């Protein structure tokens, strides 16, 4: 319930704030769809077609109504129908926003999921080993690499990865292939993007895991577990890691939620036609409906990710279970 309220509040806020942030009046908004030397009548016609001549609350109502019932726009010779769920219609590209989002979602999802698996596994593994052997060569080396990873921006690591692995040594493909078409090719073309993105994130996870593990491994119950004669692996994973996992789940949920709303820089660098690239294009074009759509989608994912995090807490940590 609260989640729904949050998403609604976000919708409402961006609906009112966005056009004002862009600093434009309804006339200016309409004018950008007309181009060269518009007459007053042209502007009025477009304003009417887009519904910009109505009060904002009426426009908001139409937007909400559109999500449930769909909407129809008058475009002169033809009308455009935007079927439910209609999250707006871009008058720059003449496409409904929702089909664009759904067609781009698999790309963003592929990117985020692959990278998430990589950074989570590598981050946690590096963190655990570093914690078990603090101040060892392994610890120093990997913490150093992790620090570098988090410090290097995506437009550097990404471009470097492209240069090295698709041009100098053409191991990986250049154009995205959908998972349903060819899973091997899909993974092959996305791998450089996954690695670059994972490099950025895994550092934080390694550091979080390391500090968490260092703390828990010094707890009394670990000593007890060892005294009981449990195997070291069991001590580390079942008793140590599980307790150190809670903060990682929190951060992971937030990160993944945000990424699903569009990995803007990564998608741009790797020329992936995902949600983030759609947002960049819309911002370039000053095209409000897609911006609204992407923001809404991102808000939705962040909220959902938080919900999942809460549920996972209970699974990982018996202390927060309700009963």
């Amino acid at each position: 319930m609260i989640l729904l309220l949050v998403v609604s509040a976000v919708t409402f806020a961006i609906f009112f704030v966005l056009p004002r942030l862009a600093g434009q009046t309804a006339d200016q908004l309409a004018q950008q769809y007309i181009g060269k030397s518009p007459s007053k009548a042209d502007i009025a016609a477009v304003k009417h077609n887009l519904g910009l001549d109505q009060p904002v609350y009426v426009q908001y109502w139409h937007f909400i109504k559109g999500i449930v019932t769909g909407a129809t726009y008058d475009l002169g010779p033809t009308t455009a129908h935007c079927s439910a769920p209609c999250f707006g219609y871009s008058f720059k590209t003449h496409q409904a926003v929702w089909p664009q989002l759904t067609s781009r979602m698999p790309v963003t999802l592929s990117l985020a999921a692959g990278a998430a698996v990589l950074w989570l596994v590598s981050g946690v593994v590096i963190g655990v080993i570093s914690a078990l052997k603090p101040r060892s060569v392994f610890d120093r080396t990997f913490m150093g690499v992790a620090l570098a990873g988090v410090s290097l921006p995506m437009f550097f690591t990404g471009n470097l990865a492209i240069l090295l692995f698709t041009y100098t040594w053409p191991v990986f493909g250049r154009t995205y292939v959908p998972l349903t078409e060819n899973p091997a090719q899909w993974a092959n073309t996305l791998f450089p993007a996954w690695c670059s993105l994972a490099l950025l994130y895994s550092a934080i996870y390694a550091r979080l895991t390391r500090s968490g593990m260092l703390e828990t491994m010094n707890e009394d119950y670990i000593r007890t577990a060892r005294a009981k004669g449990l195997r070291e692996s069991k001590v580390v994973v079942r008793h140590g890691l599980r307790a150190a996992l809670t903060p990682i789940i929190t951060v992971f949920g937030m990160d993944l939620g945000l990424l699903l709303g569009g990995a803007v820089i990564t998608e741009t660098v790797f020329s992936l036609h995902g949600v983030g690239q759609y947002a960049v294009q819309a911002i370039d074009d000053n095209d409000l409906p897609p911006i609204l759509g992407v923001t809404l989608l991102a808000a939705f994912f962040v909220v959902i990710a938080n919900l999942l995090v809460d549920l996972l807490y209970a699974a990982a940590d018996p202390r927060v279970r309700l009963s």
Partner: protein
Amino acid sequence: MEGNPPIMRRSALAVIAAIGSASLLVAGCSKADDSKDDTGTKSAGANAATKGIVNASDKKGGTLTYELSDVPDSFDPGNTYYAYMYNFSRLYARPLMTFEPGAGTKGNTLVPDLAASKGVSSDGGKTWTYKLRSGLKYQDGSSITSADVKYAVERSNFSRDVLSLGPNYFQQLLVGGDKYKGPYKDKKGLDSIETPDATTIVFHLKQAFQEFDYLVAAPQTAPVPQSKDNGVDYVKNIVSSGSYQFQSYSEGKQAVLVRNKNWDASTDPLRKQLPDKIVVNLKVNPDTIDKDVLAGDAIDLAGSGVQAATQAQVLTDASKKANTDNTYGGRLVYMAINTKVKPFNNVACRKAVEYAIDKVSVQTAEGGPIRGDVASTVLPPDITGYEKSDVYATDGNKGDVTKAKDQLKACGKTTINTNITARSDRPTEVDAATAIINSLKKVGINATLKQYPSGKYFTDYAGVPKFTEKQNVGLIMMQWGADWPSGYGFLQQILNGKAIGASGNTNLSQYNNSKVNDMLSTSIATSGDDARNSIYAQIDKQTMDDAVIVPLTYFKVLLARPKATNLVSTAAFSGEYDYLNIGVASK
């Protein structure tokens, strides 16, 4: 054409090009530039495609890939304004006239495309008649008629609330154009375009316009069957009249074109229909595009030149440099002097500015000789009507402090305080303005830099006379490219005193010299190319004598030459390769 807002077709490309150049690289570039052109056995040599057709071949087959870092305004021939779309759309939309695929200014030659011959004018240039070729067919096999051309002009020029992205010259020129509401609202059509039979089309203009052939070379005259037109959605089901047709089109991602089987080579002396398939990938990372072009896998559709990093890379490697074309981009980089802001209402004060500026320092800020030659005329060399001259010649183009101070004295001043504007999101323009400020300081002119976003530069700031006067903006940074490569197409929008608007003004000097205004209107009514061209040269000279514009550089682009056939860089499309007949090269 009075009151027309800024023509951004080519200037829009400037943004991309401007980002691609950086003053950091100047040293590297000029050093490489000094070395002689490399003519290896493998490659045709540097700048070969600016002198002739490189890899001329009739080899058919294969897939040709274009890449674009952005998305075009529209693939709809009636709804686009970008030079590269004017160029590319000819593959699927044949205009009445077009440009001959030729190197450099040879590419400015007009040749009939859909029309059988050039336009025949009567009535002193107010009536233009075109005869279509016979046997013309659309991709579905139906016949192309002159009524379809009439309809295409009407939909693209008169329905501004539906198709708004292209220019509207026809609306401004045709009789009754101001009243007609467009074919979507008024099915009857416009009376001043007549189609007496299926292959004849007659345009009736309000005034004599001797460069009408240039206008009908726009994709707006490519035929559109009325029964298939669904306004803005036509872009999703374009009916081809050219050698290729759309197989698929995915907004913002990709367009795929395949051979049009109903295109008949006997109706078309220009197109060769070489590749089996043409793929256009959109929104590709600009660095990736450069790498793909160098690897021989793609052509950069925008044709605005390589990125700064790539520039450094290709210019320092002789074998890579041999595969580049450094060509004019049909554009002048200049600074307008505002004649309505004191003391620049005095010609001597303006001349002081002309003499004071070290143009080499500006050229360096713009990215060195690779990004432009030092300019001394309003018309760039790749525009028809250009004549070499240098009214304010200084030693080595480095400016002349003594002469500048003399002019300042003649103006009755020892110092001037003014403002100079530049577009904040164009770093090279800001760098150039900074170089100018430094030059001017030496003679006692103190200019303060004011930066404004390019999106509102003309509508809210530099293009608003009241704003410039109130804010003491005496100097205005600017770039200009023409809609068609002639003196009139270039000069009319920036020098016509009758075209100064309250907003969206592009005559930034607010130059209103009746002699120039008269010459502009005389030129366009004058038949005979030579006669017209000599008037353009006179206008250029008069403007320079009045010192209202400081030409800085003739804009140049550095193209990485792809591994493909029939490559020729043409002045007709801002130095881009002519896209009509590029084929796949064997690897």
